């Protein structure tokens, strides 16, 4: 199947899932942190577990996880926090997303390897 269609189909599911999480977590920064950490865990697991299956990795990795997580919302929300005077929260938000996502990538990879 055309990889662009796979990425697009995964992108639809990822964007809708992010929208669904957002409607359950009204706090915008927590909502973005949740999808970024969850999506990084999933992508870490998929990258380690599906390395041999290019089509599934394109659909679920590049498409779904790529669209489920977001950098632009994270950047806008962090700048807004900083500007509102909540500078420590802004720095904390930037650090939590980074550390949370990197740990999640490692944990996801470890989980996939352990289950294989």
């Amino acid at each position, binding site marked *: 199947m055309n*990889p*662009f269609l796979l*990425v*697009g*189909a*995964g*992108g*639809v*599911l*990822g*964007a*809708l899932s*992010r*929208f669904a999480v*957002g409607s359950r977590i009204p706090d915008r920064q927590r909502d973005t942190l949740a999808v*970024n950490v969850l*999506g*990084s865990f*999933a*992508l*870490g697991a998929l*990258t380690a577990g599906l390395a041999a299956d290019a089509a599934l990795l394109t659909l679920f990795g*590049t*498409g779904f*996880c*790529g*669209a*489920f*997580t*977001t*950098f*632009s*919302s*994270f*950047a*806008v929300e*962090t*700048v807004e926090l900083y500007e509102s005077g909540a500078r420590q929260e802004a720095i904390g938000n*930037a650090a939590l*997303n*980074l550390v949370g*996502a*990197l740990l*999640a*990538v*490692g944990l996801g990879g470890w989980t996939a390897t352990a289950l294989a």
Partner: protein
Amino acid sequence: MSETDAHSATEDPGARWLERLEPLLLVAVGGFAGAILRHAVAAAFPGGFPWGTLAVNVAGSFALGALLYEAELSGRLSAETRLVLGTGFLSSFTTYSTFAVQTAALSPTLAVANVGANYALGFVAVLAGRAAVGEVTG
């Protein structure tokens, strides 16, 4: 009761169903286009350093900064536009998970450079996007 009242949009189950479905369709259309364009940009930057992800994250942060600033500033932006362009397109065009996985795979020096570049340029892009809107709208 007049004929039009009996068939007003809120009373019609079909119209109500469409009203509920509309935000999902907007997010889906935007998500489809955003993910495909991100994939196209990544394909244009083959090689060791994840330049493609940096490019989409910075460009998407610029555009979302401009879009949301415009929405706040003028109130002219409809909820539909925000859903299809913001929640759908730009949020799917940019990515945090790919950025995190690629960072974890780099050497320590390049990983620090990648995080620094995405963060610094991403935040500056939000501010630049707003400034661009300010220039255009005066």
